């Protein structure tokens, strides 16, 4: 466009990012690095699992927190990546690294298909449509016994030698998680990330400002699927086994619950939520086999008492305290 309606004035500097956040990030990172010194082998692999599911929860937060569309099919996108990695390495004898690339690619393409079908909907319709699409994926994985092994699933070929050790593997996953988190953080704070939040707030306003809203929704969904694919590929190496339960609804539900427990729209809440849910699962499974019921109950309690999630609630309290002082 040519001349704006207002004429030019000299620019002003924008506030620098708060140092406090950086300090906190350094503390958390130091704690994550020191964790293997404190935990025995079995427990460090729980920490590894938490990191992987934090990435999945962040991928959900991109949609649920920033675009304002809550997906219930991300377990399927995640699990398809896992399937591809294990099929490529165990059934076809391919290299793990190529397999992980293919897994992420498959998840991204699947997300693109989901997106084409789901972006015209919003609210509970979006939730139900992504749920239904996830169920289809689950059905296909269950039925295609020739490729997926049906209910028996597929066993992997084991981790590469240097990743067998629990602590080594933890550091390897941490080495992936940190840059992935940083990239997602950049993504949601980019100009495109702002358009995602604009769509969450008012689609009609976005349209009349010149934004092609469905295109932005599509791109956000594909980006989210790409991240879920990374988590799924890492999970393939972690778990070394995949079955329909990896793509089933409860996977989507627990991943969404992690995002919600941490606080949607907070990004780092994904880590808090994944920690809370996975620890809870480990504690609960000592006492009872009814994890799905406990999961459901947790969901209800969170939605009633802390719908803004742990990090979301903490932010509200902090803001209040700062205003008072």
């Amino acid at each position, binding site marked *: 466009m040519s001349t704006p309606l207002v004429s030019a004035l000299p620019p002003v500097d924008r506030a620098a990012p708060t140092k406090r956040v950086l300090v906190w990030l350094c503390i958390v990172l130091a704690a994550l690095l020191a964790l293997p010194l404190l935990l025995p082998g079995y427990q460090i692999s729980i920490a590894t699992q938490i990191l992987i599911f934090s990435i999945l929860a962040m991928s959900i937060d991109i949609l649920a927190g920033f675009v304002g569309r809550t997906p219930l099919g991300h377990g399927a996108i995640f699990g398809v990546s896992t399937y591809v990695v294990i099929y490529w390495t165990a059934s076809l004898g391919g290299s793990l690294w190529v397999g992980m690339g293919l897994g992420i690619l498959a998840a991204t393409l699947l997300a693109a298909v989901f997106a084409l079908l789901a972006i015209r909907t919003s609210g509970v319709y979006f939730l139900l449509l992504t749920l239904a699409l996830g169920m289809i994926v689950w059905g296909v994985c269950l039925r295609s016994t020739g490729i997926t092994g049906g209910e028996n699933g597929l066993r992997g070929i084991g981790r590469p030698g240097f990743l067998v050790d629990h602590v080594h593997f933890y550091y390897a996953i941490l080495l992936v998680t940190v840059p992935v988190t940083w990239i997602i953080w950049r993504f949601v704070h980019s100009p495109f990330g702002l358009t995602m939040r604009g769509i969450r707030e008012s689609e009609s306003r976005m*349209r*009349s400002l010149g934004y092609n809203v469905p295109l932005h929704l599509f791109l956000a969904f594909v980006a989210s699927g790409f991240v879920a694919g990374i988590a799924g590929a890492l999970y393939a190496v972690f778990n070394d086994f995949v079955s329909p339960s990896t793509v089933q609804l409860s996977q989507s539900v627990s991943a969404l619950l992690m995002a919600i427990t941490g606080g949607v729209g907070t990004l780092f809440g994904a880590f808090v939520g994944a920690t809370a849910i996975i620890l809870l699962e480990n504690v609960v499974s000592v006492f009872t086999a009814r994890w799905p019921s406990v999961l459901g109950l947790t969901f209800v309690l969170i939605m009633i008492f802390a719908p803004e999630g742990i990090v979301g609630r903490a932010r509200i309290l902090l803001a209040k305290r700062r205003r008072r002082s």
Partner: protein
Amino acid sequence: MPDSILTLDGVGVRFGGLKAVDDVSLCVKRGERRAIIGPNGAGKTTLFNAISGVIRPTSGRVTFEGRDVTSAPPHRRAAAGISRTFQITNLFPSLTVRENMELAIWGLVARKFSFFGSRKLTAGEDARAKRALELARLGARADVLVSALSYGEQRQLELAMTLATSPKMLLLDEPAAGLSPSERIIVADVIRALPTDLTIILIEHDMDLVLSLVDWVTCLSNGRFLAEGAPAEIRTNADIQDVYLGRARPHA
């Protein structure tokens, strides 16, 4: 008509059995200041929706700058140079004033597809945002959440967001609705300060405001074209006085 920027040919919008806009034809010249008046429910907002693409007309044709845009989606029309404000405040409430301005400014530039770039406005963009906020008397409120603004300030932001862009035609849907007299003066000042080559179509109930700002008035009633004329004629037109001026002034 080479100097006409917007032409409506028999535009109609139906909602089920209701003809909200019924066979309206009008022609707006480049640089014209046009008011659209009429009682509540006359179809003024719906007509804006048909022009800006929020609603597709069920009949007739919308031509903007010689191009048929009848079925173009709103973002295409925005790219063609149509900008609008909303009668019912339509902002991004949990974003700051500055973020609202950023979204307004990036609507028509490639920067909106910057996936990992910085959100820092360029010097030129920042100047536009600041100037627009100052014109709309929001200069000191850039870092405030929109949800924390007063109603009047939100209406001012509606205006500021269009000011920071460079449209060819501006559709203002009751920009002063619900404002106090002093806030109305701000709105009138902002509209007067706009470049004279910008085409403006204004919906407004405050007749003093309307008649002081525009050079041509179109009156709708029950979705139909009723009359049009210069502001001076409108005050004396018997038809319009019957349906509109004669009544108690409606409030939005």
